[in-house]
Structures are given as structure tokens and as C-alpha cells.
């Protein structure tokens, strides 16, 4: 692999290596720390991985970061506390409610979108929105895309990594959705959802431990090897958790590209994987960051937190140990994201 950003990047990596060693020796004391690790970004950070929870769809996960049901007030207080000026909201793990292919699913999606849009209206400078779609219903999805963009003025569209019926996003089934999103130069935010095959595997932990990250990799592979990015180059794709396992596996993946897919990869698999944007939510640990920063162009790394399923601390408390340069922090925290969403330019 060729280093694509010269000396300064090598410098960063060298320091990252040291930071990794320090983090290992020091252990991880994220939650006992009293100090608030405010993100040091001019204009405040933009969080692309931040979940809203419409009250009418249940109390929501709350999750490790929540402590009770999610409210916009809680999110705004957390953002203030950690130096986050903008959060682009999307729906959290609700595949079973949203991706049913029924009227109930379509209604739930609409509820989530209207609620998100209302929050944007109330806090136009602090909230953005990735509109949800009612997959696997393609007609419903096309209608919702239109509503999201034309009526609600969303910043992008949020999808899960599979349609909750055993299909991944590169399946031909989704072609009309990709056509429409390409026509709109959409930004697509892809969030994991544990697929049917792998929700109840009996090997010990809950699916949230590793299966989410596997499915991000499946979905990225599906989109790339089935030519979605080749046919629809106007779409920009963001996914989560430092790419799940994509950067780690990229080398082995390139040696396993199906022969029939080579035509979609005129510059090789790496070139396509590097067109993605990856948020660092709950994956700013030295190990995924080491793989991510070796692999990805640094202007494709975005800040995210996965609040409230995750506490913001589990991302930001790792940042000081990485010893990232000021320029890198500014770009990851805001600059790279401003280019995708110019309306949030400071």
C-alpha cells in the first residue's frame, strides 16, 4: 500500500504507535476519569453518528449512554459538555419496527422523520437529519426519499446494513432506490443492523458485541462488489465505527474479489473502499484507529459518538491518547464533514 499523504501522515502514525503502547500499559480507565475530554475543534465538532428517539416509538434503548429515555434536552446538554456543536440525527437499532415492509413500518419511519425534522426546525444550527426509509418496501422508500428531501429538507438518507429480510444493499432489489439517490446526489448514512442469520448465534455474547461490525463489512462488500458505487458515483457513503472490520480485512478482501466484480473496480478494491467515509464512533481505540489511518485517506475520517446507545465518553476519552495532530483533529472533527454538509460551515 502506498502512503497517500506524505511525511506528516507518517509522523502521525509513528506517534499513534507510541500512543497505542501507552494505552496498553496504562489500561483503559475511560469511565473512572473525572476529566471531561472536550473535543478540541474550532467551531465545535460535528457528530455524524448521533441517534434520536421519537417518544411515540417507545422509550428507546437509552443504552449505555442514556440513563432513561432519550430527549433532545439530554442530547443538547451532552453536546455542550463535550464541545459538539452539531449532531446529524439518525434512528438507532429499530430494524424490527422500521423494516417490516408493512403499513406499521412505513408509519414508524414517517414518525421518526417528522420528529427529526421538528428537532431540526427547533434547533436549526445544532441538528441535522438523516431521513429513514421503510425498507424492504421499495415503492414506500422512493416516496419517503421524496418526502424527506423535498418537504423535510434532510441532510441525507439513513439505511441499515441489511433490509431485515436477508438482503444486503448491493442486491438488485434495491436498484430503484440507488437510482433515485444518485439522481439526488445523496449522502447515505449506513448503520448496522444484525441480520436474521446472525442474531441468535449461540456462542456467548449478544449480537451487539461483534455481529454489528461484521454486518457493516458485509454491506460495504455488497455495495462494492455488486457495482452500486460504479453505477451511481454521485452517492457518497458514510458508515460507522471506524469501518467495523473493513480496514483490517481490506487486504484479504482484495485477494478474494469475485471475478465477475472486477469490472466494477477499474482501480481495484482499495480505491472503492477509500471512497467511503468512516465515523469513529466507539472505535477510537488505538487498534482500529491504527488500521483505519493506515488505510483511509485522512479527509474521509469523520467524528461520531453513537450517543445515546453509547456514552460520548467511550469515543472522546480515547482521543487524547491517540496524540492526533491539531490539523487532523480539526479536519476529522469538522472540516471533512463541512465539505459533505456545507450548511454547517462555521
Amino acid at each position, binding site marked *: *500500500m*502506498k502512503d*497517500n499523504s506524505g511525511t506528516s501522515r507518517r509522523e502521525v*502514525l509513528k506517534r499513534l*504507535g507510541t500512543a*497505542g503502547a501507552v494505552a496498553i500499559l496504562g*489500561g*483503559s480507565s475511560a469511565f473512572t476519569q473525572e476529566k471531561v475530554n472536550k473535543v478540541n475543534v474550532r467551531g465545535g465538532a460535528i457528530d455524524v453518528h448521533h441517534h434520536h428517539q421519537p417518544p411515540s416509538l417507545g422509550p428507546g434503548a437509552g443504552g449505555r449512554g442514556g440513563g432513561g429515555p432519550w430527549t433532545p434536552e439530554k442530547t443538547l446538554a451532552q453536546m455542550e459538555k463535550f464541545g459538539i456543536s452539531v449532531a446529524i440525527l439518525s434512528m438507532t437499532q429499530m430494524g424490527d419496527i422500521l423494516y417490516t415492509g408493512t403499513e406499521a413500518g412505513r408509519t414508524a419511519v414517517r414518525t421518526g422523520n417528522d420528529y427529526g425534522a421538528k428537532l431540526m426546525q427547533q434547533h436549526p444550527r445544532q441538528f441535522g437529519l438523516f431521513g429513514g426509509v421503510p425498507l424492504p418496501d421499495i415503492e414506500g422508500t422512493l416516496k419517503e426519499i421524496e418526502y424527506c428531501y423535498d418537504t423535510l429538507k434532510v441532510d441525507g438518507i439513513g439505511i441499515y446494513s441489511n433490509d431485515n429480510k*436477508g*438482503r*444486503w444493499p*448491493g442486491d438488485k432489489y434495491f436498484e430503484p432506490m440507488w437510482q433515485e439517490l444518485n439522481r439526488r446526489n445523496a449522502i447515505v448514512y449506513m448503520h448496522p443492523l444484525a*441480520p436474521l*442469520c*446472525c442474531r441468535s*448465534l*449461540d*456462542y*456467548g*455474547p*449478544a449480537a*451487539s*458485541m*461483534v455481529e454489528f*461490525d461484521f454486518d457493516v*463489512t*458485509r*454491506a460495504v*462488500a*455488497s455495495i462494492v*462488489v455488486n457495482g452500486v458505487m460504479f453505477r451511481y458515483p454521485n452517492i457518497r457513503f458514510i458508515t460507522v465505527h*471506524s469501518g467495523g*472490520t473493513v*480496514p*483490517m*480485512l*481490506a*487486504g*484479504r*478482501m*482484495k*485477494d*478474494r*474479489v*469475485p471475478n465477475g466484480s472486477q469490472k466494477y473496480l477499474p*482501480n*481495484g478494491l482499495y*480505491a472503492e473502499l477509500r471512497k467511503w467515509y468512516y465515523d469513529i464512533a*466507539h*472505535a477510537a*481505540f*488505538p*487498534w*482500529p484507529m*491504527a*488500521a483505519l489511518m*493506515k488505510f483511509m485517506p485522512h479527509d474521509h475520517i469523520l467524528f461520531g459518538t453513537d450517543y445515546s446507545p*453509547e456514552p460520548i465518553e*467511550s469515543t472522546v476519552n*480515547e482521543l487524547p491518547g491517540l496524540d492526533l495532530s491539531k490539523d487532523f483533529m480539526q479536519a476529522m472533527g469538522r472540516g471533512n464533514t463541512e465539505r459533505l454538509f456545507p450548511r454547517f460551515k462555521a
Partner: protein
Amino acid sequence: MAPDNGLFAQQGQYKPTAKGGCIDVHHHLSPPRFGGGGGRGAGGGRGGGLGAWTPQQSIEQMDKFGIGVAILSLTQSGDIIYDNTEKGRAAVRTVNDFGAKCMQDYPKRFGFFASIPFPDVQGSLKEIAYAYDMLKCDGISIYTNDQQGHWPGDPHLEPIWEELGRRKAILYMHPWVPACCNNLNYGASSFMNEIDFETTRAVTSFITNGVLFRHPELRLITAHSGGTLPVLAGRMKDRYPADKNQYIPNGLLAEIKKLYYDCAHATYKMPWAALTSLVPPTQYLFGTDYSPEPIETTVNEIPGLKLSRDVLEMMERKNAERLFPRFKM
């Protein structure tokens, strides 16, 4: 940006640093006519040309790349050997007798991880006794799941771990795509990603079910720089089931750092950066995944990693010598 597509042009560039050459812990045998030819277990593969695997072919490749010793194990054949029938048990025995013969024919060049007939516990116990006491194997090879929907921490397999713990066994764990995930229709074969997910599932199963806690004498080797384990370790520690904390008195990361990791087909900068920022150099082992993979895909990447002499020697040979003292120079 130029992708890494020039691998095969660099042939012969890599020369091991360690005296005596590398010890390859991830190197596959396939008995003649095993798997009926053309099946998943037929040998050959990207590294092997079209013919069936032969010991001579491996020795030639080892000589070419400075590999002193290869510890052989069976390649992807879970459908044959884990079928839980007499046929499967017989196939395991065929593999083990063939592996032992390879060792006899080349005692200084080949070691052997014997297979066992998962999920048959009694059959596995018998095969363990045979493999150690009669064949003098160097360790036991298992796949990451038993082909029937169980992962290694499943309680019904406990007698096997008891016996292997008693023997202070070295356990070589090779990925095998489980039934759930072998035909997911997302466009790529299961060898592209699913196989690496599996290593993480199986390690998780070992740890969360307390196998490594109850049997600390077991030394577990995983393949491909840990599959996806190093990049996920942080998220995993935050998602570790609270009711299993008794099995990780020093935390999950401490358990992950105790495992051994072969670098077969995963010496790319990205996995290597993740692995080495998490796991100490005492745990790195050399491996190639020959013949399913050509040896080049591992060794051609090593010079670019710019490893220190010490780390190279540990990874290539010295760590393996500690595990398998009979190969000590």
C-alpha cells in the same frame, strides 16, 4: 493511488532473518484423493496450481522462501470431518495417519496438528489419545465451529478441553464458515469476509464460556492476524456480558493478549498495525496458509512493515520454538 497489485513481481525478495528459517504454523496438508477432488477440501487453491497437494510441493516452496519447518494441519474440510458419523471419524483418522507419515518422511521439516472429529466428544477423546500417544503430534487442530451450530465454548465440548488442558495442548484454531453464514447472498464468497468473522466468534466463545479460565494450560493459536479480533477488541470489552466477568479477572484485553496470532495472508499494513498496537510481540507467529494461499501473499508484505530484527526473529521462529521446543535450533 497504486493498489497492492504487484505482489507476484516481487518474488524472492523476502529472506527470513531468523537463523534456521521460519516456522510456518499455518500450512495445510491434504491426503491424496481426500474430498473427492474439486471440493472445498481438495487442496490446490490459489497457491497450489491445479494438482493435489503433495509433501514434495510444500518442501520445494519452503526451500524457496526460507521456511525451515511447517507444522501441517488439514485445510477447509469441516463438511467432511465434522459430519458426526463413522465416515467423518474415518476421514479424521486418514488425515492424522497421513500427517504422521509426512512427519516421518521429513522429521526435521514437518510438524503436525492432528484433527479431531467434532462434535463427537467420545471420538475426539479417542483421537486425542491416538494423536498424542501413537502419532506424537505437536498439537491439535480444530475449526472455529463444529459444523452443527456450536462454537468451541459450548458446554458439551468441555471434556475435550479438560483432556487437552491436562495435556497442556497447543490448540491450532482454523476458521471454518458456520452453517448460518455459508450462503449469505451479498455478492461475495464466504472466503472474502465470513471466514475472518468466525475467528472472532470462536475466541469470544472460548472466553465468555470460561474455557480459557478453567484450562489456562491450553495455548490457543489463531489465524490471519486474529481475523477481526484486534480492531474489535475495544468495542468487545465494552459489550462483554456482565454475567461472565468471573472468567476475565484481568479484563478482556488481557485474555486477547495471551493468544497467539499467525500472520498468514494478513501481513498487510492495516491488520498488522491493529495487531501490533494491541498484542505483544511474544505472541506473533509466522504462517502462510499454503497452499490455499500462495506464500507470496504473506511474505511479500513483510519487508514493507519495517519490523525490527528482534520482532522479526520472534515472529519468524523464536516464539514458535518456545511452543514447539523440538524444533529449537
